[in-house]
């Protein structure tokens, strides 16, 4: 009988997930005794009755590596340890259904699980691993916020999309002498904003790691409108960036709008507009960099299954693939380090962080 691997993806989607799935399947098909099955919508597929799982043949995954999203669909609200279950009285209560999950894996003959997901997903992986599930993780985060891998797929595509947005906003800001504010993803880590600001050439970059003050932003913008200034400005702001005023009061959320409103309140003379990039950063075809990385991680994850190195995650470290135990993965967050060379470079070309 063939050995079966269940592929599960959870958390928000990001470009490259399909390339991972394709790589796992293509790698498995180099040998004759493996079967790859996909669980629909995170763990829902293996938990629902009847099961919602699909055989992932080579034909099924053909050409999917350049499609964004995931053919398995995904969900960031499904935790088998706190899973919504319909009660007899019609209400819904969250219950621990991990035993049912493990039972289903056993009954349907799954030898291993490959779980593609972000920080929260790997906490689930670790718990399942501790309960005896043969599980391998693959890191997925659009925010580049996992510390244990040098790169995660999807991030470079998001940075590229955000950069192209800055390119476009620069020409229109220049034409109308406006201040344009671009809000990008990054709740706790400002990597996308930092990359797009440097690559696109913004004057102000606001990230969660560096609290900003409106006075400082105002001053920087003012200099752009001085006699020898360029008469327009672009701001890139991470959604999680926050403003701290002299009294230590913090403003966060809807940050692009709040900055625009704040500048108007301070009587900044130029016209100010905002753009919120939103899910454009998660959609579309992954750039070559991410497709390659995703393919590498997919192949590596299969090989970790084959070598029975369960309870680990495939990672890309120091230009090579390797693996790390899930225990070490948890709680290692990759925020922008203020001594990082990118911060140094940004300041070196005159970008202000509003600090």
């Amino acid at each position, binding site marked *: 009988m063939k050995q079966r691997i269940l592929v599960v993806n959870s958390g928000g989607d990001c470009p490259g997930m399909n390339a991972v799935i*394709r*790589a796992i399947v*293509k*790698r498995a*098909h*180099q040998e004759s005794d493996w079967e790859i099955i996909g669980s629909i919508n995170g763990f829902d597929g293996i938990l629902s009755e009847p099961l919602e799982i699909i055989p992932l043949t080579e034909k099924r995954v053909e*050409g999917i*590596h*350049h499609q964004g999203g995931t053919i398995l669909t995904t969900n960031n609200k499904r935790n088998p340890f706190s899973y919504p279950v319909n009660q007899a009285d019609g209400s819904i209560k969250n219950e621990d259904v991990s035993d049912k999950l493990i039972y289903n894996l056993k009954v349907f003959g799954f030898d291993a699980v490959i779980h593609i997901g972000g920080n929260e997903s790997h906490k689930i992986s670790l718990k399942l691993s501790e309960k005896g599930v043969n599980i391998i993780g693959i890191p997925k985060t659009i925010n580049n916020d996992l510390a244990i891998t*040098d790169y995660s797929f999807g991030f*470079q595509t998001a*940075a*590229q999309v*955000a*950069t*192209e947005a800055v*390119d476009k906003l*620069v020409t229109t800001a220049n034409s109308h002498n406006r201040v344009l504010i671009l809000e990008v993803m990054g709740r706790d880590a400002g990597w996308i904003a930092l*990359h*797009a600001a*440097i*690559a*696109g*050439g913004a004057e102000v970059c606001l990230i969660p790691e560096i609290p900003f003050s409106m006075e400082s932003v105002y001053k920087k913008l003012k200099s752009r409108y001085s006699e020898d200034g*360029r008469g327009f400005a672009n701001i890139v702001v991470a959604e999680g960036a926050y403003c701290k005023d002299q009294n230590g009061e913090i403003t966060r959320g809807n940050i692009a709008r709040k900055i625009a409103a704040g500048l108007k309140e301070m009587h900044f003379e130029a016209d100010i507009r905002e753009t919120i990039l939103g899910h454009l950063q998660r959609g579309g075809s992954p*750039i*070559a*960099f991410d*497709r*390659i990385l995703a*393919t*590498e991680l997919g*192949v*590596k994850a*299969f*090989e970790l299954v084959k070598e029975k190195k369960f309870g680990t995650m495939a990672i890309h470290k*120091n*230009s*090579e*693939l390797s693996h790390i135990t899930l225990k070490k993965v948890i709680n290692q967050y990759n925020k922008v380090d203020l001594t*990082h*060379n*990118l911060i*140094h*470079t940004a300041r*070196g*070309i*005159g970008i202000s962080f509003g600090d």
Partner: protein
Amino acid sequence: MKKKVLVLTGGGDCPGLNAVIRGIVKRAAQTDDWEVVGSIQSFDGVLREPTETIELTEKRVSGIHYQGGTILGTTNKGGPLAWPVKENDGTWSFIDRSDEMIRKLNHMGINAVISIGGDGSQRISQVLFEKGLNIIGVPKTIDNDLSATDYTFGYQTAVQIATEAVDRLVTTAASHNRVIILEVMGRDAGWIALSSAIAGGAEICLIPEIPYDINKVLGVINKRFKDGKGHVIMVVSEGAKPIDGNVLSQKSDEIGNANLKLGGIASKLLKDLKAAGCNADMRETVLGHLQRGGVPIAFDRILATQFGVKAMELALEGDFGKMVAYQHPSIVAVPFLDAISNYNFVKPDSSLVKTARGIGMSFGD
């Protein structure tokens, strides 16, 4: 009086050169006492009479980071160590004008030189450094073939362009049941071919580091057609070579260009496959200089900007004789000698090759 740094670009162009120039100028503008001058067409601008240099102000470099090419122009011929001179009989000879050039730079009040270029340029920089010139290098190679740095700018853009070419060729190959061969850059290192083959999903990838056997290549094609997947995409480096043969090249007809002109491997493969008995319909695409043109992707702009800022800071610190390099996650400075002594070839046991083989790609070996 302000101190002056001279910037020049040498060797073949690649996306990101302008972002380096802008990075240098913007970093210099953060100081009060430095200005930046650009030499037109590598060192030629300095060597010519009258001198061809331009002032690089912040205004001049505004917005150039997303333009491909180099606003300074470039050349991969001649240079201070081998300046071409036409003799009376019409032949060309080459003379060393380096001492004269260094004197001229002193006369022009240049305090530091930043040379952006490939391994040839870095070699020239080392000679000039030994002669006492305050020089700093920025690596530039579209082929990603320098081992001192994890990546060079321009390379990821080239991979992206080659990948998009594979994307397009896949759909037309599948519609017509064809074998399509895509020839990409890579004289000695197959990075662009390997990366775009993985990202685009080619079945066969031929690179200089792994000589191919034409019969093995034919075997893969025949198997694909037999298995009912009636099309094949093959990505080949211009420097790919058969196990029993040599790389295809011809001498460049440009004066002073020592590089051999590579190319033609796609047509050769087409011919050789036919001769070996391949009866599938085959087509070739040679990507050529599309790989060097256009807007750099974000990755390359960021890397180029980091290189520019770091190079300018080495000038501020008076730390000469070094080339900037990316060693994840840091930007470092390495001596020219280390930088030019090691090439970065694709290692047959690297994770990238393993990944390619892992998804069933053939290297024709």
